[in-house]
């Protein structure tokens, strides 16, 4: 009963440092990433936002004078056309990816665990080789004097080479090719997560194969579909090199527009304003995604 707090207990109080080292460990883990993200993501993007309201001097210097003219230019008629076209290409690429990826992922998800692992690994393997080199392979194959046209002409199937790249179709092909796996992975994950019992339960309750697909499988894989669509659509708007390589430079994505402002026109404020639009569009899609019960972790491509 009698508390004998005497000299014997002194060392115990010394170990207060235990809580100090605990704090040290905690911040040692949290600070590097926090500071890095602050300095190289948050501040740069804030700066882009600020720039979008600034003026420029003639040679591209930024003049810290508030203006809304950049946004006026953002919404100028000819830019709107590019957005429309860019969003169009992005949307078509997304839909094409979805139409290919969904059945593909579904059929793989139906396989055994070993086959699944192997097939999904095979989906990722091509991405280990350089995207541009792979993209250029399509040019090699599909240009007017490419492998396909040459072969077809040799065989007498066609007499005039088909125009398959250096046009909008070429851009879509490039986008689909590079981004398909980002559609496949989240869809596969969401399908693979579906409890097989649910499918049996539906079957038990009289659902046919199509009804199961329509009523159970598709609704339950919606987060994956949405994640895939985001992971294809948003980057496609920015992939300027795809339209450069595959489109012959005549079609422009929003990414090309931004790149132009930064790399050639030296109009950083305008480029920033367009970027801000792109950021806003991304945020809107993300909010929708989360509202629909999407899991952000699905966006990492894992």
């Amino acid at each position, binding site marked *: 009963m009698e508390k004998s707090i005497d000299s014997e207990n002194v060392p115990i109080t010394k170990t207060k440092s235990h809580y100090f080292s605990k704090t040290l460990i905690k911040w040692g883990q949290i600070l590097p990433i926090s500071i890095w993200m602050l300095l190289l993501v948050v501040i740069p993007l804030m700066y882009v936002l600020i720039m979008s309201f600034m003026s420029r001097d*003639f*040679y591209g*210097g930024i003049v810290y004078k508030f203006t809304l003219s950049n946004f006026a230019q953002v919404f100028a008629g000819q*830019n709107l056309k590019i957005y429309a076209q860019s969003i169009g290409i992005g949307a078509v690429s997304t839909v094409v990816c979805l139409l290919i990826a969904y059945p593909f992922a579904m059929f793989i998800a139906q396989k055994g665990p070993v086959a699944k692992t192997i097939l999904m690994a095979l989906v990722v393997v091509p991405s280990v080789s350089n995207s541009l080199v792979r993209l250029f392979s399509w040019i090699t194959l599909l240009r007017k004097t490419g492998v396909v046209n040459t072969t077809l002409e040799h065989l007498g199937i066609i007499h005039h080479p088909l125009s398959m790249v250096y046009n909008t179709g070429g851009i879509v092909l490039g986008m689909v090719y590079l981004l398909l796996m980002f559609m496949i992975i989240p869809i596969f994950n969401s399908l693979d997560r579906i409890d097989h019992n649910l499918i049996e339960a539906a079957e038990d309750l009289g659902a046919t194969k199509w009804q199961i697909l329509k009523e159970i499988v598709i609704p339950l894989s919606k987060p994956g579909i949405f994640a895939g669509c985001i992971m294809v659509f948003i980057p496609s708007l920015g992939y300027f090199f795809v339209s450069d390589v595959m489109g012959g430079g*005549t079609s*422009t994505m929003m990414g090309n527009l931004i790149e132009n402002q930064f*790399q050639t026109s030296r109009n950083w404020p305008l480029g920033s304003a367009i970027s801000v639009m792109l950021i806003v569009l991304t945020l809107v899609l993300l909010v929708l995604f989360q509202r629909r019960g999407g899991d952000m972790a699905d966006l990492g491509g894992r």
Partner: protein
Amino acid sequence: AKHSKTLNVIGWSEYVPQSVLDRFTKETGVKINYTSYSDPDEMLSKVLSSANGTYDMVLAPGMYVQILRKLGRLDKLDKAEIPNYQNLSQTALNEPYDKFNQYSAPYLGTVMGIAYNAKKVKTPIKSYQDLLKPEFKDSLVTVEDSRAVVGCALMATGHKINDTSKAALADASKYLAKLKPNIKIFDGSSPKTSLINGEVSAGLIYGGEIALAMQNNPDIKVVYPKEPVYFAYDVFMKLKKAPNGTNVDKFINYMLAPKTSVKFSEAFPYYNPNKQAVKLLPKKLRDNPAVTVPNNVLARSQTVLNLGKETTKIDKVWNDFKGDQ
């Protein structure tokens, strides 16, 4: 950096052969980092947005001497270090952008000619206007060079290449709007490629590129329109606070040596202003009108100059042309 062993050059892509650079490295031990661009505005952007000292020298059209000087980005060349400067032909010197040859040394000259594939193009092309014909729908290539292309449009519609008056630009815009449907590819780096591999049947492109295309595909021919043509020198410039400044002079001197000049001229057969080198050029190149631009063509050529703020007007015409489908 007195004994620096590197040299950071920013210059056109497909314009300086790697072998020439490698030889310089071998001879002097100086490693060259050659950053390429396909649109001179890209160069300007990079130079301006990067910290001083990022690049040591620039290889760009002559008018950029004016621009970079105005921005205080150029240093004078140390002519004493460049004895080979004397090899240059008088015609290439004292150009309006560098009246006293203090800041630049010409490398090669570019003419814009019309290249066509004789197998596909039957009716002869005589004028810029001929490029507007519907038969060329979706089958032209042009360079990604705003001043050059808008310049051609100005000349095609009877104006001067540096004219930025409303009327002139309106005419040029109209011309370009009609040209647009015929353009399949914008290619600033290697417009020859699409000509060679048959993706396009004609193009408004740089002389050297035409010559290369002709070498690779005998069906390719060159023609100069009856209107004035574009001609410009690409010149070397030394950037301010270049950490490897002495290497710049050394490098220019090396490039102006006839032995070197022949090498790059063979690889990229543009108009060569080096009198000593021209003598050494193979006959085939000397006789090719795409390389050795005929005097009458040179006579009606015009060159682009810096237009200061007026440039934005050209930019707008260019952007409308490129962006609008």
